[in-house]
């Protein structure tokens, strides 16, 4: 635990990639393999389910520190992180532990699960007595399943590869599935990651590292100059589903999500379909909810993911399908180095053959990502403008000669080997800041989480809006008929640190009331809020819920009475859903 805590401290305070890799290499060289196995698991994003509820930790910490709930809560509000608050309120340790990370996790943490709360509290309190503040913080994070530190999986792989003199891509491939819920990190498994520089037989269900796409930040006028002709590109629709790799080997099917979780059990329909594929086939594609031959909004898929048990009703309400857009392995051979257009042709062959075996099912639930065609970028741009009506997020551009790469790579040369997301611009609304709450972690004690409102109707003029704002400042309850601001969305991203500082100051200066950590403010600021989708919601006071809201900019130029209204939100709803609701997924 000491070594791991030291590594965490070094990773946490460093912003330089090289310093982080050095720290990781030093750790892997020094740690026992059994401990390093768990370290890789946590660093690569593995999370055991929470073993003890926060309420038990909270109560045990209060008891050990000799403070009441309210005082702990005041501390939590200042710290902005539960695990850290607990670590700080406890008195200094009474003895020190030399146990390694693996023993801590296997013998002390995982065994807490299922114990009576009183027993959990007693054990955790005795653990706290053996650890300093930094180690306690880590322990609490591990117990809560909330461990996070600023290293990417790629960085861990690089450190392992450099330390052992093994190709980084091999390490990446061997690490696939390492953090899966059903996998237990062991010294043997850790040793396999860097065992030899020769590619060995992969575990039979292993997927390949996902090739990730980049956002295309380019003006339409520059496309021809920077990207060349559209004929050099494979253009497809970008679906709003779950990216998934489908592995068929040894008469079995594995479905891996982009987070490298094995999700086969969540999607029995897709597993069933994939059984028809020949052994030695790996496809990349998107799982979407498929209804009446169309892609349904992501919200429906999200509801299904939220369900613990897949009842018949759930399967009927939200049946999923698979849109394949790439083939990574065929007849047991890794084809990722072959150019994109060859893989596309192969994909059509693969699914053509499988389709023959599947009959009609292929038509309804298992299909090839359709190609969007246009003679020039202008016509593709106009096609892209139809995205919202088609229920997709925009277009994907894949160079016809590109290989299937690993992870996300920075690319200066636009045409070289990268997948580009050419997403549609978000929906936007100009709205008014009405509540603010302090953030967490790095943003603790800074007001960074905001609630925004729109007018219930268009103010007649600035004077009427001012009167309504004065009423808010006097905290008069609003008359239902009167002009008022209706909260509809929360957002906490999109501003720079400098902008957050400015807003934080305004929040402090214009605070009307404090409700625990939340402050209501006298409305003075207009923001342009962007979001990906808009839906009706019975759970929101405004009757509307928006997807992925974030702040695009502060509209200092816009007076409050010119902020948008509920009617403007209704217009966006109509724009997205049209009169019929769902729209065809396949371009005609």
């Amino acid at each position, binding site marked *: 635990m000491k070594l791991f805590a030291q590594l965490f401290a070094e990773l*946490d*305070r*460093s*912003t330089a990639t090289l310093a982080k890799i050095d720290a990781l290499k030093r750790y892997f060289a020094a740690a026992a393999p059994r401990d390093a196995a768990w370290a890789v698991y946590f660093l690569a994003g593995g999370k055991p389910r929470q073993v003890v509820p926060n309420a038990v930790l909270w109560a045990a910490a209060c008891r050990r*520190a000799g*403070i*009441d709930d*309210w*005082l702990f809560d*005041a*501390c939590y509000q*200042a*710290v*902005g*992180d539960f695990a*850290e*608050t607990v670590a*700080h*309120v406890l008195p*200094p340790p009474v003895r020190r532990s030399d146990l390694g990370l693996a023993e801590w996790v296997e013998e002390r943490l995982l065994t807490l699960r299922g114990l009576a709360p009183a027993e959990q509290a007693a054990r955790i309190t005795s653990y706290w007595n053996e650890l300093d503040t930094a180690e306690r*913080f880590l322990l609490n994070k591990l117990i809560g399943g909330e461990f996070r530190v600023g290293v990417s999986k790629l960085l861990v792989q690089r450190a392992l590869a450099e330390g052992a003199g093994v190709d980084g891509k091999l390490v990446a491939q061997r690490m696939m599935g390492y953090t899966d819920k059903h996998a237990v990190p062991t010294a043997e498994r850790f040793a396999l990651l860097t065992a030899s520089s020769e590619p060995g037989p992969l575990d039979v269900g292993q997927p390949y590292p996902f090739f990730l796409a980049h956002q295309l930040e380019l003006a339409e006028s520059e496309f021809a100059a920077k990207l060349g002709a559209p004929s050099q590109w494979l253009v497809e629709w970008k679906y709003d589903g779950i990216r998934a790799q489908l592995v068929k080997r040894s008469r079995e099917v594995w479905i891996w999500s982009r987070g490298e979780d094995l999700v086969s059990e969540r999607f029995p329909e897709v597993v069933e379909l994939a059984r028809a594929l020949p052994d030695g086939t790996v496809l990349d594609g998107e799982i979407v909810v498929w209804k009446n031959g169309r892609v349904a909004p992501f919200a429906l898929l999200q509801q299904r993911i939220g369900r613990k048990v897949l009842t018949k009703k759930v399967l009927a309400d939200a049946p999923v399908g698979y849109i394949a857009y790439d083939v990574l392995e065929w007849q047991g051979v890794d084809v990722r180095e072959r150019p994109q257009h060859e893989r596309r042709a192969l994909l059509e062959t693969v699914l053509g053959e499988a389709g023959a075996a599947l009959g009609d099912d292929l038509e309804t639930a298992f299909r090839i990502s359709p190609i969007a065609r246009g003679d020039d970028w202008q016509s593709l741009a106009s096609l892209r403008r139809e995205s919202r009506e088609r229920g997709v997020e925009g277009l994907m551009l894949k160079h016809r000669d590109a290989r299937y790469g690993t992870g996300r790579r920075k690319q200066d040369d636009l045409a070289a080997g990268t997948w580009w997301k050419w997403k549609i611009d978000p929906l936007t609304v100009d709205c008014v800041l009405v509540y603010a709450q*302090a953030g*967490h*972690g*790095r*943003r*603790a*004690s*800074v*007001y960074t989480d905001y609630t925004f409102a729109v007018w219930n109707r268009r103010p007649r003029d600035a004077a009427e809006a001012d009167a309504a704002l004065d009423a808010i400042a006097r905290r008069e309850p609003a008359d239902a008929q009167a002009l008022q601001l209706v909260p509809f969305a929360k957002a906490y991203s999109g501003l720079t*640190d400098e902008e957050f*500082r400015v807003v*934080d*100051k305004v929040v*402090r200066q214009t605070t009307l009331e404090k409700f625990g950590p939340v402050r209501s403010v006298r409305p003075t600021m207009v923001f342009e809020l962007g979001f990906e989708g808009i839906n009706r919601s019975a759970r929101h006071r405004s009757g509307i819920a928006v997807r992925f809201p974030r702040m695009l900019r502060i509209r200092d130029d816009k007076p409050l009475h010119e902020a948008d209204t509920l009617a403007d939100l209704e217009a966006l709803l109509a724009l997205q859903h049209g009169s019929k609701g769902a729209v065809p997924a396949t371009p005609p």
Partner: protein
Amino acid sequence: MTDDLVVQRKEGLYCPPGDFYIDPWRPVDRAVITHAHGDHSRRGNARYLAAAPAEGVLRTRLGDIDLQTLPYGESVDHFGVRLSLHPAGHVLGSAQVRLEHAGRVWVASGDYYVAGSSADPREDNQTCAPFEPVRCHCFITESTFGLPIYRWRPQAELFAEIDAWWRANAEAGRASLLLGYAFGKAQRILKGVDRSIGPIAVHGAIEPLNRAYRAAGIDIPETPIATEIGDKSFFRRALVVAPPSAQGSTWTRRFGDHGDAFASGWMQLRGARRRRSIDRGFVLSDHADWPGLQRAIAATGAERVIVTHGYEAVMVRWLTEQGFEASAFATEYGQDDDELPEATGAVVDAQ
């Protein structure tokens, strides 16, 4: 409440029988100054009274003022109020103000530093007279770090950590830029570090205060000012102490590749460290931690406690639960001190 020896007025904390103010934030006729930080000692008052050791730093900051000084422990009578000043352990010359009138004793602490972990003299602030508990009926306390999450580690551990950071940088051939408030924090750093590791330089804003400390007999090393050093190789093993406003400024370019760190009680929290975008945060404070506040309050024997600047609401509730008669004053302190919550950090860099 009319018998109170200190009340709150728009100009500041006021002693009605004595007709003077303590650390007023608006100009008044007579101001008793607890210490020379900008938020407690403002310009524009007609007459000042402060502890004798504060004279040098006060004059360095406020220039030519009408200043009367009083050695610690000696008293003066003013309109029937007996006034004396007692060490607060915060910075050079910092004082608690003891007021005695008609059988009642009140003490206004200003800012103070007392380690909560133990009464070990090694935990005292080594750059000024240590905090002296003064018995009183009513104690006016600050509450900058008035939450149980603030517990300072032993100073020996902390300085060992700073030394190790400096040493590692020196071995890598790069400068160590340590940021801390120019008055008080900088001198504690300079006094506390291991001078054998390498050369030390300071920012120009710190040297005048160092001189005032040396004149008061405090052992602060003689150091060059960074801008006066022609040979850049000097910095390769050097520790450079500078005020927080220097971070990221063009002034730092002279050091080339360097490590940076910030010394403040707020560095206790991970969020504050990360927000600062610095390599290291060292938890070094000139204010009492939570156990220190409790220990200081208990040592006064006061039944009544009035809480100022910091976590007033928390402290008032806590003290009430412990059986004290507790209330708060709303002051305008904590505006020019480096140890403000980060969120109001814009003013930190004003000086």
